[in-house]
């Protein structure tokens, strides 16, 4: 059974028929990558600015693209944009909406990039935010452990090895052990954030761009 959708508007040039419904079901990622809409729009706006700055797309089109993307952002946040599985993913859903808003100039946004570049960028931006959120959460937890440590700095308790009493410690000392552990976890998130804080835009799958683009 083939789906009723005509061949894909974004890449369907060489296709005579649309995808099977099951093909669409296994292929589409919009059900979950819609979560990346904010990062997708942010990265596209930056990409459009680059295309303008490099003289690849003229400034009128760049402005229309960047403004249109902001409109889409508000539409999504207001729950007004219906995502379509036929458009596969967040990138194509945004681009299709942009075309409806500003016309053929929307097609210039995808100059010099692939969806693989987009998703790599979106995901890095998202993970970077999550690393920040994790650090904030860990530090809040550290403060809670620290409050316990301060209250019971001199309250003796058993220290254990093998869950058998070993030597006396204090409640504060024990709580501080967790403060140190979680501090190392926050450090790991900072390290990971620094390592992935690079922009993957513009390899266009695996090559750079032609010199005279």
């Amino acid at each position, binding site marked *: 059974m083939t789906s009723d959708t005509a061949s894909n508007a974004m890449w369907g040039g060489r296709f005579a028929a649309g995808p099977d419904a099951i093909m669409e079901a296994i292929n589409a990622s919009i059900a979950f990558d819609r979560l990346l809409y904010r990062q997708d729009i942010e990265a596209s706006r930056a990409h459009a600015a680059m295309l303008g700055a490099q003289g690849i797309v003229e400034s009128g089109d760049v402005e229309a693209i960047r403004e249109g993307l902001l409109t889409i952002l508000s539409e999504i946040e207001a729950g007004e944009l219906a995502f379509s599985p036929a458009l596969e993913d967040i990138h194509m859903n945004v681009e299709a909406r942009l075309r409806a808003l500003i016309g053929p100039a929307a097609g210039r946004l995808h100059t010099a990039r692939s969806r693989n570049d987009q998703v790599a960028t979106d995901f890095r931006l998202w993970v970077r935010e999550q690393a920040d959120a994790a650090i904030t959460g860990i530090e809040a937890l*550290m403060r809670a452990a620290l409050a316990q440590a301060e209250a019971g700095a001199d309250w003796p308790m*058993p220290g254990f090895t093998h869950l058998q009493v070993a030597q*006396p410690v204090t409640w504060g000392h024990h709580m*501080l052990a967790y403060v140190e552990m*979680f501090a190392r976890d926050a450090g790991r998130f900072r390290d990971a954030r620094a390592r992935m804080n690079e922009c993957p835009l513009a390899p266009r799958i695996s090559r750079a761009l032609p010199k005279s683009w």
Partner: protein
Amino acid sequence: MPPCATHLSRLAEELVIWSSAQFRFVTLSDRFSTGSSIMPQKKNPDAAELIRAKVGRITGALVALLMVMKGLPLAYSKDMQEDKEQVFDAADHLMLALAAMEGMLRDLTANRAVLAASAAAGFSTATDLADWLVRAAGLPFREAHHVTGALVRLAEETGRDLPDLTLAEMQAAHPAITAEIFGVLGVENSVASRQSYGGTAPLRVREQVARWKERLE
């Protein structure tokens, strides 16, 4: 995320043990506990148990991703699309676990008297006794360990704790022992005697608390 989830799981396990009737080291707040549908007396540490379990889910996501990426040739393959849901899910549950643990820790009451009574049990100051033999009587640590072991055995066999042994009994184990030794056998003394950096002496603990407070400001 898995290391952080592992640490949360270890703390959660301690809370489960500590809040049990056998330990009673801590009392969890009602806000982070639940009751039983059949046993009216129960107050269960469900939040701690769920936090303890999150590491399975979060590390499972890591393993799933490693298996997806295994054997992929360069550059892009659609396989990689499978990463999103694992990472989204792991992040959601890590944030939830962090928030729940913070709430539990803020709310919980440590039962000071129970902790203190438990600290003195189980011959917990035996190492202090051995250290005293090294420091004050000049014994090699191996010999001090052996002498202390004999005293612990004597105490255990006669149903007493180390501070309850007489000086004569102590001296029978080693003639260099003096009455001064009783000063290191109390829990408070034991804790206060560890004064090097990061030690259990309350002064050192407060120093660390101040250091971390400053860092977290």
